[in-house]
């Protein structure tokens, strides 16, 4: 009697997508898409080749960047961006509180709920830049148009998160405040607000950060701020000044990120 050789045992990692046909369909679809995408993408390689020295020039402009030549413009652009950031964050959050409260299903009546959700959906579906184009047309060039754009974008972001946070709150606490005979405003102020406040302060700081970053972009289409300065620097091929502006933006964003992280830890 012979002993059957033990079946060779191989262990394989379990795949991410368990159903085999789905896995294959997914892989095939991806391959097909990539082939199509690469096949139809037109790239002017000779232009790319021509541009490479310019790219090298741009990279070398970072060593060292020229802060001096356009310093006045940089300071003006950055301070405009900072004003826009502050004003739009404050206005945006102030406006998003009623919208956010109205968009929370557990405390708003149904018609108000749908109305506020519609406001949020509309203000979220457009890019800041597209909004900025229209506001620049309406309000004229300058930081006002940019500030309006960023305020509107803030409503979409902050209102949605506020509404979701209110929907996730502990209903028992709100109920307890209501049981004392509190009026609607007192109920919101003592039952709802303390529950969402810590997270909302953190998100406010985060939005401040985002608004600064976005303020660099609305300037490109005429909304004021550092974006306009940056656009001019690129149009004049002054890569050393552009490098300086980019570094200033990066440093401010880093500072904002660290200080807001620090503040948030302190608050929670």
């Amino acid at each position: 009697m012979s002993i059957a050789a033990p079946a060779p045992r191989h262990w394989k990692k379990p795949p991410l997508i368990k159903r085999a046909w789905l896995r294959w369909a997914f892989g095939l679809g991806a391959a097909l898409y990539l082939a199509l995408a690469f096949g139809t993408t037109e790239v002017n390689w000779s232009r790319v080749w021509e541009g490479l020295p310019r790219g090298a020039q741009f990279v070398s402009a970072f060593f060292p960047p020229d802060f001096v030549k356009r310093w006045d413009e940089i300071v003006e652009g950055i301070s405009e961006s900072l004003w826009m950031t502050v004003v739009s964050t404050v206005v945006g959050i102030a406006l998003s509180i009623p919208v956010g409260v109205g968009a929370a299903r557990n405390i708003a009546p149904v018609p108000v709920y749908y109305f506020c959700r519609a406001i949020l959906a509309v203000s979220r579906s457009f890019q800041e830049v597209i909004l900025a184009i229209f506001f620049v047309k309406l309000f004229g060039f300058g930081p006002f148009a940019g500030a309006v754009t960023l305020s509107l974008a803030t409503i979409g972001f902050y209102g949605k998160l506020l509404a979701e946070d209110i929907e996730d709150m502990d209903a028992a606490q709100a109920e307890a405040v209501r049981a004392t005979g509190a009026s609607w405003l007192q109920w919101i102020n003592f039952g709802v607000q303390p529950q969402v406040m810590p997270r909302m302060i953190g998100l406010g700081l985060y939005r401040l950060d985002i608004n600064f970053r976005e303020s660099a972009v609305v300037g490109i289409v005429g909304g004021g701020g550092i974006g306009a300065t940056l656009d001019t620097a690129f149009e004049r091929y002054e890569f050393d000044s552009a490098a300086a502006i980019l570094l200033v933006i990066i440093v401010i964003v880093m500072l904002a990120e660290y200080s807001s992280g620090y503040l948030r830890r302190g608050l929670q």
Partner: protein
Amino acid sequence: MMTVAVKGGTKIWQRRDRNAQLAIWASWLVAIVLFVYCFQLISEKTIWAFVWDAPAQAGDLAARMIPPDWGYIRQLGRPIWDTMNIATLGTVVAIFLAVPVAYCAARNTTPSVTLVRPVALFIIVASRSINSLIWALMLVTIVGPGVLAGIIAIGLRSIGFCAKLLYEAIEEIDEAQVEAVRSTGATGAQVTVFGIVPQVLPAFAGISVFRWDINIRESTVLGLVGAGGIGLELNAAITQLYWTQVSLILLVIIATVIVSEWVSAKVRHAII
């Protein structure tokens, strides 16, 4: 402890004690002063006549935009396809570059905490703090206008986002599983493949789809600086004052964004 004020012999409940109340008042004061000051500066740079005129202008613009020029939709197929390619290929590029950056940035996998990690973190911050439109602005002057500039711009912008979320996922993995793989005598590469990758793979897929969704949104505007896609058509229509075409393009953009959001939500729901 409950804070209580005594007024005429009766105790009255108060939310905060006096110092806390004063601190809150002071911070409100500072915030309001800062806000008013900033608003003042902006208002100096604003021509208010234009602002008061804006509602009339908006009405005028809206009248010109309606109805959308539906026939124009036949010319929008190609730009939308380009926009989708920019977003998708850009995301693919970003994912490939973000993986090594995240690996170097995570405290538990980085080769060196003092040398490599700060560099990786700087790459992440630099990529995150510069918007894709600014990357596109740069790249259009370097590689020329077109889809390629858009793809690279989206890719560069997304590295930071993907790498940040991915390295946070790597830092949160269960060390016991890694330890178990290591104790079988696995090499460093095997520990990564069998101990770490399976733990972060679902998070990784979720991050990629989430970023793809954001990138669809962002790539719709890259054309404004010449980086291809539907933004080019939008820019052309706006400069030529074809407002009926502008409104159609905006509708197409909304539809694309809604569809991509739906797809991304479905996929993430299936993964997590």
